């Protein structure tokens, strides 16, 4: 499988805090790469760097063979990089369908008619069909999380960045998101998935990237990752 994303020596500091520090990794097309690490390890900053909302101090983000480290966010979206936010950020005064249309018309560059067809399909896939005309302000958390994912899918992503979509959900609900994300991958989409829930991270990703203090601590299969002494140390503490 060809590489879709290559991050080379990426760094970003906020004042004296090195949020992401000399980080490098690769992702193959169609792969699900889980990203874990303690709070403050730099996972969300890494997403912001890849999606373009913040610019790196140093390093490269190579997407489809092109360095996009300083490309504008809306252009990156049109190139095929979509993201979800940890705390859902829907357009509150718009209906669910309208929320999706934004991504489909502007991100995927489709006509209004095509967009509507595509959005109806995505609403079915994410279990939101029945509420497509509802204003988002009235939705409960689970539906907002579904919508967050659906919005990103509407942009026709090549690379999907999922930021803690399963946080705060029941086990059954997490399973539902696992199914959706595996379905998305089957269509050829590459997924980077930040999550704290261990069940999601053992069943979801092909490989795990473990981050600590902005650095790469470990990359490998999920079972190897959770058995690695280094990883256990940062989560459970040192015995000495």
């Amino acid at each position, binding site marked *: 499988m060809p590489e879709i994303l290559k991050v080379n020596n990426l760094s970003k500091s906020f004042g004296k805090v090195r949020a992401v520090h000399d980080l490098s990794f690769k992702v193959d097309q169609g792969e699900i790469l889980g990203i874990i690490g303690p709070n403050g390890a730099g996972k969300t900053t890494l997403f912001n760097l890849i999606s373009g*909302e913040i610019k790196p101090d140093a390093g490269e983000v190579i997407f489809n063979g092109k360095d996009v480290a300083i490309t504008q966010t809306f252009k990156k979206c*049109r190139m095929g990089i979509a*993201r979800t936010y940890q705390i859902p950020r829907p357009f*509150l005064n718009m209906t669910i369908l309208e929320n999706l*249309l*934004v991504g489909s*018309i*502007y991100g*995927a560059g489709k006509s209004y008619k095509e967009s509507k067809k595509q959005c109806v399909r995505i609403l079915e896939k994410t279990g939101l069909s029945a509420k497509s005309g509802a204003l988002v302000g009235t939705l409960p958390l689970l539906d907002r999380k579904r919508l967050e994912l659906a919005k*990103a899918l509407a942009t026709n992503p090549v690379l999907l960045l999922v930021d803690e979509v399963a946080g705060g959900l029941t086990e059954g609900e997490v399973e539902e998101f696992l199914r959706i994300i595996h379905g998305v991958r089957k269509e050829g989409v590459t997924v980077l998935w930040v999550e704290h829930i261990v069940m999601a991270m053992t069943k979801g990703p092909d490989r795990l990237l473990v981050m600590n203090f902005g650095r790469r601590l470990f990359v490998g299969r999920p079972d190897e990752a959770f058995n690695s002494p280094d990883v256990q140390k940062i989560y459970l503490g040192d015995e000495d």
Partner: protein
Amino acid sequence: MTAKPIRLTFIVILLAFLVTMPLWASRYAVNVGLLVCLYVTLASMWNLLAGYSGMVSLGQQMFIGLGGYTLAVSSMYFGVPVYLSVLFGGFISVFLAVLISVSVFRMKGVYFAIGTWVIAEALGICFSNWGYVKYGMGMFIQPAYKLSMSGVYYAGLILCVSSVALVFLLLRSNLGLALMAIRDDDQASETLGVNIFRCKFICFLLSAFITGLAAGVLYLNAIFIQPFEAFGISWTVNLLFIVIIGGIGTVEGPILGAIIFVLLQQFLSEYVGYNLIIFGGITIGVIFFAPRGLVGTLQMKTGWELFPVRRQ
């Protein structure tokens, strides 16, 4: 669905009323009608910026002053027909909007508000120190003396109808979808592929153009223009009042707001000094009891819209 025929009938009756007004109404009533039309136009344009594109401008008076002065200078000094001069006013306003967009678009929120206000104030000072436009004494727009009241009224009516139609169509278009997304969460809209700068730029230019045109018609009626009045903040304060009591971010809000504002202004014109207190009191009352404005609150309670912009 019966909602659509009711809406259409309502709009047709309203238009018929406005179009025939010069035939049966008194000169005074036509003049009030003209003011309503112009304030609907100006307020719709301010609403397009503040209510839909997240640009709270306090500098709309820069386009009002510029539109008015373009009319005065080109009709008086160059003998250009007055209605053509009004059109020039619109183009000059767009030109200014392009020039200042480089700097004001770097500002957000309250900084944008202050930035636009400062530019308008600076223009006022420039014009009051400029001999070509007779300093602070102001100019009488003589070619406008002989215009018929109904001619000016129809110019105002055309602007009013087309600005409301424009806002309505714009909101129904794909650009409108992007604007609503930007209003709700600009960063999230950008990660979905929306080019925020482009959307805001289009709205800013449109608003400048139509505000400049409306200012021209306004001064065809007023006949006299003076820098500190033309470039004064009170224009935008009035628009703010209109849009807030009518309902910010609604197509109908500026219409209702402008009617209330112009009628109040007529009734209160005898009580100079008290009128501002009354306007302020009404604004505070509306903010307390109907924070989305009269139209906005009504829509929330009944779901009825004269100009529905939702996608089904």
